[in-house]
């Protein structure tokens, strides 16, 4: 998921790739409120995931952000047991 996240941030949010490393905080990686908004919209477009901006921006690091998206993707793809 990290590689896909980084690609979305570069191609959709227009961020430079160099600061986007797993251990970087979102701030250090350049992931500002605009990037988070674009990412939220892109996740819905590309992966069908609805994760709002508050949840995304609460991730402490880029790796945590990738984990959050991966977990949500796993949950979303599970068949419903309801």
């Amino acid at each position: 998921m990290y590689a896909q996240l980084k690609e979305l941030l570069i191609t959709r949010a227009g961020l430079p790739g160099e600061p986007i490393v797993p251990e970087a905080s979102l701030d250090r990686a350049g992931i500002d409120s605009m990037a988070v908004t674009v990412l939220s919209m892109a996740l819905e477009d590309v992966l069908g995931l609805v994760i709002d901006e508050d949840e995304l921006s609460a991730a402490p690091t880029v790796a945590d952000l990738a984990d959050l998206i991966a977990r949500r993707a796993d949950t979303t793809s599970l068949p419903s047991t309801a």
Partner: protein
Amino acid sequence: METMEADERLVPLTLGGMTYACRLLMPRHRSGTEPLVLIGGALQDMYSWPRLERRLTTHTDLVLMDLPGTGSAGDLAASAGFEVLADSVLHALDRLAMDRVNVLGASYGAPIAYRLAQSHPDRVARLLLAGATPRVGPRLTAVVRQGLALVGTTDSHPADEPARRDYARNVVDMLVNGATRNEVAQGPAVARLLERQLMRTSQSAALRYAACHERLLDTDLYPLGGIDGVPALVFTGEHDCASSPEENRAVADTIAGCAFALIRDADHMAHLEREAEYADLVTRFLHDRPVHDLPYCTDPRTSPRRQR
């Protein structure tokens, strides 16, 4: 490389009982031009430009300001004019021992930057105005009045959610042209970001925004007399409906020899929609490089009249 390698310094300021602040970002290599003072819009503070910070600090020292009535600064009565704010900028330059600077005034910041260049042309090496209009037009005036009515006074309760949502959408439709949103780079994302921010505005912040907005109404924003002897650039997005291309042109026409540019596929929020191009345009002008015939700008001589 467009990552920021700059040292940061915060400077508290006071002038005539007003408290405010500025933020200096200094690249770790010589920039070859005067520092750039960035004076932003009424909804912005000195931390509102992270993307431009990253791009511009590879080329120039940058000074961002929380002028009275914005961000971390103290309140400023709506009755205080733009002259007070221009004086605040001048005082900051004195405190920073900056004899000459480049000044970029965006939207609400444009009348402040203009006054500084007009009254102290010796202090302004280059003037850049983004999203400028001689007067606030009737549609934006109506939206501002809607906001003023909603926010009420210090003792007022916040308006209910549907009323705030309606206002937020009207503001967004002015800043991110609703008629061309899908033609604009990142238009839907900028609109969503702004609407979220507006819906989360506290009552105290809303009162401060209201004071700033009220300052814009029913007045000529640019004093008579024009500007001569200061190299200047006026620019905005080609789809700007808060300050149309024609209105920006009218402001440019008051400045002798002023350059003019319209960024393609952008509107009043060009700094978010086309940040790389916005930064390139600014950087070119700061370094006395040509700003005409750029691939990301329309030819302003052939730009059609846009929807207001």
